[in-house]
């Protein structure tokens, strides 16, 4: 029998009415982030869906301070905010970047790398939905190979960037992946990230019904499938020590994940075996590599 403790949010730190699409990963994510971080947090938001979701004038979706900043500059603005708060003795107030994949993998990579390399005391959270969704689904370097976007109408022909590899190379105190289907795990990671100092990074695999082309009610199911297929393994690394936080119970082919999403449907109109096999191989290799990192 489950009890009240299953309700992960005791008091909402968001207001209702978010300008997000039905079944949006962003607004769900922010509910859980704000729940852990508390109201005395400064959120720095570069251009992304969340810049809109957070509220047009004069509304603020978050019960917390929000600094909207420029697309390329989230980690840099956060740096300024962090040092200034510290100087004013407000060391307990967390500075949290809420960025999309475009603002993280692409245009914001420089400032992200700069802040990570300086080990700024910032929690950087990337809501990765694998394309520029706010502007209507254009490819980013986080877009998976094969996915259709408006700028790759026949499907993307290059691999998604291994951002976690780049992040790891910065040797920051804490980085982790998390999924909206695994909210307990997400909460634990947020709490851990909150308790640590220095540059911390969370990568969230985020569902996007209009961008990934599926019915809004499927958001959680697809997110879960991404984890269960090992396409998006859940792990964390504190001081470089890797740990896997969820082991799938049974092996599910990655094609099952792709079949659920309209952005890949063209792949299955003809024989997709070859592509799926190579995807599967890559997923398996990455998983093995992750296991190796854990064993080290």
């Amino acid at each position, binding site marked *: 029998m489950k009890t009240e403790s299953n309700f992960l949010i005791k008091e909402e730190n968001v207001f209702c009415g978010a300008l997000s699409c039905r079944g949006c990963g962003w607004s769900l994510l922010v509910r859980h982030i704000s729940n852990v971080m508390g109201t005395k947090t400064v959120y720095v938001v570069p251009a992304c869906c969340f810049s809109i979701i957070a509220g047009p004038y004069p509304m603020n979706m978050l019960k917390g301070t929000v600094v909207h900043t420029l697309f390329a500059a989230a980690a840099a603005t956060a*740096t300024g905010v962090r040092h200034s708060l510290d100087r*004013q003795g407000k060391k307990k107030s967390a500075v949290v970047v809420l960025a999309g994949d475009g603002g993280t993998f692409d245009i914001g990579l420089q400032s992200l790398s700069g802040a990570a390399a300086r080990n700024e005391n910032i929690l950087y959270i990337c809501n990765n939905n694998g394309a520029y969704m706010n502007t209507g689904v254009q490819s980013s370097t986080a877009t998976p190979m094969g996915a259709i976007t408006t700028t790759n109408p026949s499907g993307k022909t290059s691999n998604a960037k291994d951002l976690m590899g780049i992040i790891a190379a910065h040797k920051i105190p804490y980085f982790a992946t998390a999924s909206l289907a695994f909210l307990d795990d997400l909460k634990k990671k947020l709490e851990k990230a909150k308790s640590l100092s220095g540059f911390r990074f969370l990568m969230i695999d985020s569902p996007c019904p209009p961008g990934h082309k599926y019915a809004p009610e499927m958001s959680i199911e697809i997110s879960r499938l991404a984890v269960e297929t090992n396409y998006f393994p859940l792990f964390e690394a504190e001081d470089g020590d890797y740990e896997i936080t969820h082991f799938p119970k049974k092996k599910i082919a990655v094609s099952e994940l792709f079949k659920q999403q309209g952005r890949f449907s063209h792949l299955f109109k003809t024989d997709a075996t070859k592509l799926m096999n190579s995807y599967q191989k890559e997923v398996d290799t990455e998983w093995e590599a992750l296991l190796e990192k854990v064993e080290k």
Partner: protein
Amino acid sequence: MKSELAIKITKVKEVKRHTKKVLKGNTAAAEAAKICKATFISAYPITPQTTIIEEIASMISKGEFDAVSVNMESEHSVFAAIKGAALVGERVFTATSGQGLLYAHEVLHAIAHLRLPVVACNVGRPSYPWNIWCDQSDSLAQRDTGWIQIYCENSQDVLDTLIQAYKISEKLLFPTLVVLDAFYVSHTNENVYIPEQKLVDEYLPPRMVSDTDIDIDHPKAFGGLVAPELYDKFNRLFWQDMNKVEDAFNIVGAEFETHFGRSYGAIEAVNIHAGTKKILITLSSITTTARGVLQSNPDVGLLKIRLMKPFPKKSILKVLEKVNKDCILIAIDRNYLGDNEGALMQEIKRAMYGGSRKIFGVYAGLGGRDVPPTTIEKIINIDFNSPETEEIIWIDK
């Protein structure tokens, strides 16, 4: 004419509670950041600005300057960081030059429209073809970003202007760009009178934090989406306040004189009177050379523009009231912005619109090309009354 210049210099010498030092313009800028008690400093190296942040880093590491300094990875990030810091309520300072300023262009708009009292120094240099020498096209290309722009003539001016920049910025909530010429100012060691700290503190109290800054206990959002109708309204409010800058800057200059004994305003008029036949209009270091040339040209006046943005039309028109209608205005531009007219020429023409005065524009000294007295004399000696003389002249040595 001589007497007017002499008076100024004498005044400086007589001011008490100052220490004389021989400083470069860049060092004066660093010194100004310290005595203005900037609390958050961030910068990225670029010639010819670099020595400013080196000086600051050195002062901070020696414990002479109590500020946070963060070495960012680009100018875009620098300005983004100071934007964040200013929003939290810190007094921020940065310095850049040429490409760095151009790279940060996007952030300049954001800082201005967030109404943050940021003060930044720009050591002017052009962009392309690659050139590191004196030019004002970098800062003049930022005219429309909503920043106040002030141009400095010498190291003392740099120091004094930075103090005034914080004053005006924090008064009206606009960012200010203080521009100094590469090498002619930035790397030129000269006498600078540094006011004692207490004197500066009296003039420039710590920054007041307002509703429009971050207050952790009263969460708000900043810089989000604004619908068309409201965007229009906010810009109107911006414009209304921008209209107050010229008068306010003159007051700031007058107050500065009361405190420090050195007089400043939006413009400086030298030898402008009823008999003046030609007036040279200048920005920054060329002014000094022009002052020299004026010594032997009593019918030539000099109008130095300190406040370039917003352009001080009222002050200029007032000065020109006493001048004969035939007096010719010659704007000397050390910038080229891909247009027929230089920026100074454009601004002057705008200010004088509807009048009948003859206005000429001269391009001189681009990309660090030297402007010696002979060039100024050559400008003066152009036959502006000849119908052959074109409105825009590209001067040679």
